[in-house]
């Protein structure tokens, strides 16, 4: 076990998925897939509702906008981003008693 200087830690990081915004009855946050594709995650219902979490994506080369369920893009997301999305969905719509999300 080494005891390196903690101030040298490389991880200064603020997850962009913390930037959830209320839009109507849903909650929207920006997302970037592993291949660089950018888009938005739209949360509109709890985990057990099909389509409760959707990804709205546009290919890097500017193709048509696609709307896909979260489950269809899991492999293209980083694990930490999936955690962030599922926690936001549970906090906004779930029944496990987590603190409310309070989107901006």
């Amino acid at each position, binding site marked *: 076990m080494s005891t390196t200087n903690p101030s040298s830690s490389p991880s200064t990081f603020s997850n962009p998925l913390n930037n959830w915004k209320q839009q109507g009855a849903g909650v929207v946050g920006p997302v970037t897939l592993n291949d660089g594709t950018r888009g938005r995650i739209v949360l509109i219902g709890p985990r057990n509702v099909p389509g409760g979490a959707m990804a709205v994506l546009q290919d890097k080369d500017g193709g048509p906008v696609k709307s896909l369920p979260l489950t269809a893009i899991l492999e*293209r997301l980083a694990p930490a981003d999936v955690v962030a999305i599922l926690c936001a969905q549970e906090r906004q719509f779930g029944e*496990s008693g*987590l*603190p409310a999300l309070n989107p901006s």
Partner: protein
Amino acid sequence: MNTPRNIEYLLEEIITLPSLPATLARIIQLLNDPESSLSDVGKAITQDPAIALKTLRLANSAAYGLREHVTSVEHAVALLGAKVIQNLVLTATVFDTLSHSAGLVFQHSIAAGLAARAVLRAGPIRLPLQPDEAFVYGLLHDIGKIILEDYMAEDLMQAEEVSRSRRIPAYQVECEVIGADHAEVGGRLAMNWRLPESIASAILAHHDLSRCDNDDSRRYAALLNVADAMCIEAGLPSYEGAVVGDSGESWALLGVESVTIPAIMDDFFASMPEVQELTEAMS
């Protein structure tokens, strides 16, 4: 000239780490002695009524899933086995020693234990741990924060405020404000208490995996890192508004892929009632 603050300075001038509780020392000694029996272990636990009571409460909690209610420590030892009992006693003793000022850190620690357990349950991951062992790792990961709350509460609060305003993780600000972070303090406590090396190094490195000098140790720290991140993302007590660190390297080290995360999170969300139950069991 001002003396630079670092972990050595803090431990010499400001913080007195609590000594290893006698009951825990005795239990560890017995469990490492091939000539001692589980009955000896049970008797040693029973000699400390506070620890015996907490051990029984924990053993009967949903976290350990016993089908029958146990009313004696000897019975719990027989049903759960030496390793689980060692973890139960370790948990009960640590929180009995430190919980006078633990506050919300206590609830966060329980939630992190449940998060670590959920990761192990979804397996397979690259760690030779059982889910209930992972639970104990998570429970202990922030013992350094409890110590800092005891000795440097105002500095710790200032670090948390700066963390929120600058949007950087609190442990990084602790290094600036206090001179060391809670992981370093917790790691030192675990080493002083001669807790297993894998636990001590995981506590030390749970925010900075580079503090471990091999991949095996890094994976234990990675488990605590992702458990911590899960709790912060879930907005659990005392961490509302906290800034989550990058857990990407940790997930990769554990070998957990994105498609496994929904199962992990389902398990974690379903375990929320246990946070309250375990908080009461250990209070």
